[in-house]
Every structure is written in structure tokens, then in C-alpha cells.
């Protein structure tokens, strides 16, 4: 069985590309032979039923899977043509270039300011307090959080509401000026209003960063993304323009999923 890739995709520059990637947890194969190009200027959504491996695949894009001792990745994933699993590559640098936002908001139990400033600090992006202040403000503005928190930057990040926490995590990710932002079901723990705000934010960030979002909500995928990949049982079944996937899927399984036969 081969992945169906729609043919009408205009050829764009691929920011990241995966070739024949398989991910194992011990002996269990969680991802089977996935190949995909992630374009620079679009939002790419991974959809599929729970346990289909979409989050696993996402985590292999910035090597967060390294933290799981039994996980093993085969195949090749490149960022700007550079193999990210090459022993020569510094994983710290990779993660600075490929940021990530998680399912549950996970601000550090420190001040809002410290949360955002942490990345620039450890990477040495700012010389002096003024530059750091500027980066923090810029990141919070881009994350649409500045107006809400500018008066209380020294409050704990964990004291914010769920939606604000998630935007804080996005601000934290963009503070290190990444090229790609991976989002792992960023709205699954949020209420509809907070979700709408995050989606708006994704729209605004689109174009500045290559964004990959994993979601179990097809509506969300339809709303925020321009490219969609459908995953099922560890395989990528179909990949194409979001509008095509949702209106004219080629594969029967994609059709079944988006019409709600399973999932």
C-alpha cells in the first residue's frame, strides 16, 4: 500500500522532508515508511484517529523522541537538506530551529518573563537586559499575549488561564526565532474561545514560520491549514491540499474518516 500524494501540489521549497521514515518503540513499529515534504510557507496539518502515530511522527521531526529510551528512528529526515539524525548534528541546535508546542500547556513554574526569556538566554541571543526585554516583548506580541500580561510580567506563568498558558508556550517557542514550529494538538486542553484565539494566532504566524499542527479535530485542520496529511495505523494514507482532502479524498479510508465512520 502506497501513500497517495495529490498531484496538483505546486512544487514549493520543502523546509523539512522525510524519506521512508519508520519509528519503533522497542519492537513495535509506530510509524511505517512515511515520506513527506513540509513546505515553508504553509500550515501543514496531520490528522487521523487516536493512536495512528501522528504525534509520534511529529516528535521525530525535532528529535523529542530521543527522550524515550526505547524509541528508534529509521529513514531520513532533513531540515534545509541537512540530515537531522546525523551524529554530527547538535540536537540542541536542531530544537532551537524546530520549536514545539505541546498538547497540555506546560509553562515553567517561573515568571511570565522568565518563561519567554529562557530560550534566548541559554542560546545567548541577547546582549544585556534591554535586548532581552525587547525579545520578550516582541515574542509576547506575536503570540497575542502582550496586552494581557504586560502589567504582570513577574507573575508566575502557571497562574495564567489555560489558553493564555498555551499562548505563553507559543511565545516561548518563537522567542528563539525558530524556522519550524511543531504543534501537538495545541488546543485539546482548551475551551472553544481559547481555541479560537490560538487558531487566529496560527493564522498570523503562517508564512513567518513553517508550521506543522497535529489535531484530532477535522474542523480545526480545515480552518487553519493549507496542507493536510491523513495518518492511519502508523501509515500516511493521503497527503494533499487541505481543501482537496476534505472535499475530494482519493482513498476510501480518508473518505471514511472525514465522514465520521471511525475515529
Amino acid at each position, binding site marked *: 500500500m502506497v501513500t497517495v500524494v495529490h498531484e496538483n501540489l505546486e512544487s514549493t521549497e520543502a523546509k523539512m522532508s522525510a524519506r521512508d521514515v519508520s519509528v519503533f518503540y522497542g519492537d513495535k513499529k509506530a510509524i511505517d515508511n512515511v515520506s513527506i515534504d513540509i513546505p515553508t510557507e504553509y500550515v501543514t496539518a496531520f490528522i487521523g484517529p487516536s493512536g495512528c502515530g501522528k504525534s509520534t511522527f511529529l516528535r521525530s521531526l525535532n528529535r*523529542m523522541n530521543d527522550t524515550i529510551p526505547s524509541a528508534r528512528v529509521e529513514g531520513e529526515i532533513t531540515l534545509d537538506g541537512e540530515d537531522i539524525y546525523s551524529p554530527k548534528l547538535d540536537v540542541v541546535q536542531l530544537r532551537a530551529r524546530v520549536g514545539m508546542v505541546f498538547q497540555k500547556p506546560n509553562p515553567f513554574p517561573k515568571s511570565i518573563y522568565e518563561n519567554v526569556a529562557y530560550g534566548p538566554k541559554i542560546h545567548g541571543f541577547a546582549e544585556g537586559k534591554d535586548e532581552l526585554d525587547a525579545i520578550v516583548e516582541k515574542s509576547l506580541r506575536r503570540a497575542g499575549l502582550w496586552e494581557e500580561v504586560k502589567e504582570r510580567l513577574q507573575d508566575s506563568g502557571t497562574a495564567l488561564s489555560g489558553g493564555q498558558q498555551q499562548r505563553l508556550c507559543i511565545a516561548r517557542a518563537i522567542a*528563539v526565532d525558530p524556522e519550524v514550529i511543531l504543534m501537538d494538538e495545541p488546543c485539546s486542553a482548551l475551551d472553544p474561545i481559547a481555541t479560537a484565539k490560538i487558531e487566529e494566532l496560527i493564522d498570523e504566524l503562517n508564512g513567518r514560520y513553517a508550521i506543522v499542527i497535529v489535531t484530532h479535530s477535522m474542523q480545526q485542520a480545515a480552518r487553519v491549514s493549507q496542507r493536510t496529511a491523513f495518518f492511519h495505523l502508523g501509515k500516511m494514507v493521503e497527503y494533499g491540499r487541505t481543501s482537496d482532502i476534505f472535499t475530494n479524498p482519493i482513498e476510501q479510508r480518508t473518505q471514511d474518516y472525514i465522514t465520521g465512520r471511525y475515529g
Partner: protein
Amino acid sequence: MSEQIAPTRTPVFEARLKKRYAAEKRFRTMGLGAIVFSITVLLYLLGTMTLNGIGGFQRAEVAVPIDFTQAGISADPAVMDSSGAMQSLEDQGLPQVVQYFADEALGEEGAAQIGGQAWRDVAAAIAADPGIVERQETFWLPASANLASGYEGEGSQEMQALAASLAAEGKLEKNFDVGFFSRADATNPQQVGIWGALKGSILTMIVTLALAFPIGVLAALYLEEYAPKNKWTDVIELSINNLAAVPSIIFGLLGLAVFLTVFPNFRSAPLIGGMTLALMTMPVIVIAGRNAIKAVPPSIRDGALAVGASPVQVVFHHVLPLALPGILTGTIIGMARALGETAPLLMIGMRAFVASPPDDFTSPATVLPMQIFLWSDEIDRGFVERTSAAIIVLLLFLLVMNGLAIYLRNKFEKKW
């Protein structure tokens, strides 16, 4: 048509139910009884120690008025400030002066019951305030051990009579013994103090903390955050779990066989004692540390990794600060245990008679629990009270440490 009665509503069942409830009540009372028993023993223990110990903070003292204007003792302030003050006063015959005025005040029989070293108290007072030698001053000097026990209504008939008559004249009373907190061990219960042992304990604990805390925390971080799952890691974990359960006396044997062989000159020094106790405390800190580190949610680590922190940065910037209260709680508990520990120190020679507080980490010392053990072996009645007083001091320290640990635990319990 006879109606079937449900088995749970028969009189038999209800009678049985009554019995079952009685059994329930008995069982419950037994449980409560077990707790009440434990608490009673605890209160009885603390009560006994307190009752005995209160006397231990006092000592029988005899009033001796000394008229220095007759004595002709000179106290040059320059000499009095130097370490030669004692020597100078002794050379000038201060002991004889004190003896003379004691004879005057108490009669010969009474004067014989002033501790032989009593003049040192007078000398210390002069050194502190040289102006005294121009005046008349009444000193409360420690009574001899015999007179002291006579005052308690024990010992020989003559002593009891003498004590009674002196007390009636207001020349003998029990006073709070401030010096108990500044002196060291002595052969006479009237002269002993707790400061020598306390200082020894403090020095020993400093060594223990300086070794066990960093090693324990770093080992806990390694095992919890970085250690690969392999045979070596299993061996390390197994040794730590076993060390935590090895009887403390075995650590003493290790200290004796290894540390004292390498450093034979430091027998009964706080350095060796601290090293031995550190080995014993380290596993406690490792285990507490691992639990505290485990409690830090993985999402914090993910968040830091995702902005490009290296594994070392993740741990030292995020995990360690969050786990620190838990680690500190475990450390304090481990240190409290080390502070109360006697057996391993017995093995490495810290049971010596040490009459002056230790100067540094390498001078001979004893520690609080060891002092308790040594005094408990003395026959003199005065030592019973002193032992209990020392126990109170030790228990107060432990209470403060444990209180601190409980406070930390409650204050920082799960903030995320």
C-alpha cells in the same frame, strides 16, 4: 400462603449482626488502643527525660563572698585580655585566696566541699571584668559532687546534714547552670558541660552535609535523569537500596577498617566521624532525591528541551530547582538521623574522654549522643540528671530539624 422472609431479615441474622457490630467495635478499640499505647510510651519517655533533665540544667552552688581589697591580687587589663590570664591569676595565688574566703564563709568542713577547680570560675569573672579586684563580690561556686548529692537527700549522713545546715543559712542553693552550655566533659558531674559535645556534633554534621548532600543529589540526578537502563545502573541502584538498610554499626566497621587506616592520626576527629556518617546518610538523600525528581512533571522537561535546552541545562535550570524542596526535606531527615547516631562513631573511637571543645575538624571530639552514652555509664547520681539534660538538648535539635522538614514538605507540596 406463607410469606417467605428474606434471610437478611430473620431474627437469627439480626442477632448475628449485633455480634458482628460488637466485633467491629472491639476491633476498632484495639486499633485505637495500639495508637494510644505508642503515644503513651512516647509521652512517658519524654516525661521521664524532662523530669530528670530539669535538674540537669541546674547545679548546687555555694555562696562565697570574696573581699579582693584584702587579697592584693592585681589584674592588669592587658594581661587579662591575653590567654595568660589564668596562669597569671594562679601565680598570684588566687586558688589560695578563694580557699581562704571559703573557709571564712563556710567553715573548714564546708570549704572542703567547694569543687577544686572553683577558683577558675572566679578567675574567669576577673578576666571578664578586671575591676572586680578592687571590690568585694559574692560568687556562687559549684559545690562538690558529694555535697550536691547530699543536697538531693542522698549520699552519706554527714553530707546530708552539712547540706541541710548550709541551705538553711542560704549559702547553698540550686541555680540555673549557664555554664552547662559552655563547658565540655569532666569527671565531676558538677563541672560537666554540653558545649564540647555540641560543637563536636556541629563539626561532624558539617562534614557529613558537605559530603553527603552533593554526592547524594548528583547521584540521584544521574540515576533519575541520565542513567541508561543497563546492568551497571541496576548494580548502582541495588547498592544504594541496600546501603540504606545496612545496620549503622557496619558503617562504623568500614570507617574503622578504611578511614582510620588511611588517616591514622585523625582518630576520634569530626572529619572521620563526618565521613563515616556521610556514607550512611548519602543513600537516604539519594532515595529522597529520586522521589522528588520523579515528582517533577515530564512536561516541564519537554518544554525546556523544545526550546533547545541541553539535557544538562534542563536538569540544572528546571528539574533541580523544582525538586529541591523535596530533596532538602529528605536531607534534613537524613541529617537528623545522623545527628542521633552513636553506634558507628563508637567504632571509630569517638568515645574518648574529651575535656575541651574541639578546635577544628581534626582535633579529638565527641558528639551529643556519644556524650549521652558516656554519661549514662557513670554511677554518680548527678550524671543521671546531666544525661537527661543532654537528651533534652539532643531531642530539641531533632525536633527543630524534623519540624523544619515537615514545614518544607507542607509548604512546597506539589505546586504544579
